Every structure is written in C-alpha cells, then in structure tokens.
C-alpha cells in the first residue's frame, strides 16, 4: 500500500489561477522522490496540499491510510505530525535558540497548555540533542538562530522535522538559497535520513543535476500537470526540455 496517494487532484487559487490540474501519483514507503519543474508550475502547491497548508479544490489525497481532505481540525494535526516539512527560507523563529526551534517539532504531540508554556520532558530534550549531534550542531544548540549561517539554519530545519518522528519529509526547495557546499551537506543529510531511518522524502528541486543524483524517482511538472514520472535514468534530455518548455541548449545544467 502506498504511503501517499494523489487521486485526480486539482487546485484553483481564487477561482482563477489553475495551480494543479488532475494530478495523480503514488509514493511508497522509503522512496526519495524529487519534483522538478519551472517556477510557478505547482511544485510548492503539491507539497502544501499534503499537510493541508493548502486545501485542494478537487480530488483526494490519501496519506497513511487517511483521506486528508475529509480530516477535521484534530485529524489535520495528526497528519501534520507525521509529515515534517523543511522550507527554502528555513522558517525558523530567528530570535529563539536552536534547541528551542528543534523542540518546536514536538508541539503537535503536546497538550495545548504545555505547548504554550514551552514545557518539554527530559526525554524530548535528550532526543533533540541526539538529533543535533547527528547533524553536527551540538555546539550551536544554545545559539540564537539569527547567528547561524544558511546551511546551519537548514540543518536546524531538518532537526525540527525529525523531532516530529515523521513518516514523510516534505522539502520545499531545501537548497535554493544555499551555496554549493552547504547544498551538498543538506542533500547528503536528507539522503542519509531517507536510507538509514527509512523516512520517505519528497523534495522540490530547481537543480536538475541534484535531483538526478539524489532522487530514486523524478516527477516532472509543467503548468500544473505531470509530464514525467519515472526513474532518473530514463529522464532524457528532450524530456527535461519539455518540462522546462525551453529550446534545446538553453538550460544551465550538466546533464549528459
């Protein structure tokens, strides 16, 4: 049984802008899927439909056996707990410390009051430090997030999502604001998490070569429709040009 299933999903913003048109695909446990496509093609919308940051207009999304479009407020929290998310701009609370940001990943598990006053158990703190150690951020734990570099911030973002003990991690342009060396560190961590912890990853990427290197499966999106869905080896040059609707020889990428 797939962990995630899109069935004929469409999304229209404000009754005018068509973001997604009749999208269907399934993701199986442990897969590393990369969604590629031009800006504005609907990549972010797909991810945000999965954890209901965006409501779909038509179709259904089955995540972990639940139809999430029928979920009420309480069930949405359950869905979001199981789907970690990392963002292009990290979306941390910059004025709080690294460890506090990581612990935010537990909010979905806590009662409203203990979440409000920020009360975390010793086990939760221990787990947070373990995750930080794994990501090489032990020394940064008590620093404020606005003191960190972009690559470090994104690792905090990953730590926060791992704190949720997720079954799925949604990555919305995780390396779009990072330099090549930080990008490699982030992608290596994601790939490691995917392989050793068996957490399913769906990553929106702008860099085709990165997607081909890390993902086990590529979904190409153009103007809200899937134009490619398959392994990276079968993604031909002409298919890439079709995805980006560009003429041959006009893309900055090293694909053979």
């Amino acid at each position, binding site marked *: 049984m797939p962990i995630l299933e899109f069935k004929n999903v469409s999304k229209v913003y404000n009754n005018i802008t068509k973001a997604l048109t009749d999208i269907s695909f399934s993701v199986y446990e442990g897969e590393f899927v990369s969604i590629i496509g031009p800006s504005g093609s609907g990549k972010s919308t797909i991810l945000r439909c999965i954890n209901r940051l965006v409501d779909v207009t038509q179709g259904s999304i089955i995540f972990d056996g639940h139809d999430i479009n029928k979920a009420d407020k309480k069930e*949405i929290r359950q869905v*979001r*707990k199981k789907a970690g998310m990392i963002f292009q701009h990290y979306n941390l*609370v910059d004025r709080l410390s690294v460890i506090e940001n990581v612990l935010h990943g537990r*909010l979905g598990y806590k009662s409203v009051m203990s979440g409000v006053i920020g009360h975390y158990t010793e086990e939760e703190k221990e787990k947070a430090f373990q995750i930080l150690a794994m990501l090489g951020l032990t020394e940064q734990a008590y620093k404020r997030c606005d003191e960190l570099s972009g690559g470090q911030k994104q690792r905090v973002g990953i730590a926060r999502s791992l704190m949720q003990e997720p079954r799925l991690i949604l990555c919305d342009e995780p390396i779009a604001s990072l330099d090549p060396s930080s990008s490699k560190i982030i992608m290596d961590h994601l790939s490691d998490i995917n392989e050793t912890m068996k957490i399913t990853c769906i990553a929106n990427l702008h860099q085709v070569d990165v997607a081909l290197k890390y993902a086990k499966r590529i979904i190409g999106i153009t103007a809200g429709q899937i134009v490619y869905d398959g392994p990276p080896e079968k993604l031909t040059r002409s298919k890439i040009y079709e995805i980006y609707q560009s003429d041959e020889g006009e893309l900055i990428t090293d694909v053979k």
Partner: protein
Amino acid sequence: MDKTTEKAPRPNNQTSVFVQRKRTFTLAFLGVAALFVVSAVVTNYEIIGGLESIPKAVIWMAQHFVPNAKAWSRLPYILSKLVETALVSVAVTVCAAICAFFFSLLGTKTTRTAPWIARIVRIIAAFFRNVPDVVWAILLLFSFGQNILTGFFALFFSTFGMLTRTFIETIDEVSASCVEALYATGATSLQTVFNGVIPSSLPEIVSWVLYMIETNIRSSTLIGILTATGIGYLFDLYYKRMDYSSASLVVISIVILVIAIEILSNKIRKVIM
C-alpha cells in the same frame, strides 16, 4: 565614454521615463501651490502678517514665560503632578497594549481566523483610532465628569485603536514564515502564537508601546486641561491666573520629561532589538 556617432536604441512608442518624472514633479508642485493659494484665500490668511507676528510672539514669550522665584517655589508640587500624569500615561498604554495585542491576534493572518472576523477587528480598531483622544475626552466627560478616569479612558481608547492596527501589521510582517512552519508541525493556533508570534514580534511590539508612552505623555497634558486633572490642569490654572512664570515652568518640566523618556526608550530599543 567613447564617442560613437550612432545612438543607442531606446524603447519604441513609450514615453521616456525622464520626461514622465519631470511631468509628475511639475504637476505635484503646481498642485501644492494651488492648494496653498486656495486655502489662504478661503480663510483670509495674510501671509505677510502671519510672518510678521512671529518675532512679536517670541518677544512676548521671552518676557513673560520665564520662571521666577515664586514659580520655583511651586516646583515640588508641579513635579508631583507631572509624575502622576506620567504614571497614568504609562498605565494606560500598558493596559491598552495588552488588550490590543490579544485583539489584534484575531485580525492577523497568523491565527488563520475567518476573513470576516479580521475585517470586523480592523473596522473596530479604525473606529477607536480615528476618533481623536481629545474628542474621546469630551465625550467621556458626560459619563465620568471631570475625573481622572475620563482621561484614562480617552487615552485608552485611542491607544487601543492605534496599537491594534500596528500590531496586526507588525505581526503579519515579522512572523509569517515561522508561523507557517509551526502549523506544519501540527501545532495549534495558541501554541503557534506563544512559540512563534510572540518571540519574533516582541521587540517591535515593545518598541511601539514605548512610542505610545511618549505620545500619551504629551497628549495627557492636553486632556488634563479638559478633565481638570494632572499637569494639564496645573498649566491651565496658572495660565488663567496669568501666572505665566509658573505656567512656563510647567511647560519646561513637561519638555524635559518627554525628552528624558525619549532618550530612555531609545536606549531600551537598542538593547532589545
């Protein structure tokens, strides 16, 4: 620059930006000038007469608005009233800020309230803000009479309106991105407010509260004249008795206090930002 005989191409069939700028400036200048002339004519304002009276006013103030020995003997009393006024202003601003913060949460996008609730919040805030505090004071005089409560509520209402609106804008601007991430972890609205919205917007909010304290100390002087309380009442009293020296000491002490508060709040801002 190398000299080439051929000119660089420019956009076709579009008005040049430079011409457009000149046109805008000319129109704006003519507009302001016309406004001034029309309003001067309508109100029978004599420009030259107005300017001529400035030196006279300065000379009159220099002669009468100087604290004398009698005024200095009243200083302790003046200061006690000044402190009272300042403390009331601080209390009003803090009360209004707390109410405005929770009210503004309903109006921000961060709490994901229904759009119609947000609109109602904005309308209520606009109503409280757009009635000037002096008008609030006059209206409230009917219910509370010449009482310190009148001044308190007058300042409370206008501060509440002003801060609600600024808080809504500040919160939406500062915390939109982390709020999205916190909701994505499965946090509730209340958890998101306490873990995301408050930590990221607190410095800005404190800064606005400090600014409102400064403003309210100034306004409370004027409102005090209406409600016969605080330092404003004292100024009014001395002024009507034609005891200009004492009145001047009141003014000087207010100015010193406001400047002191401004310096202090700038220091606080530097620390928290």
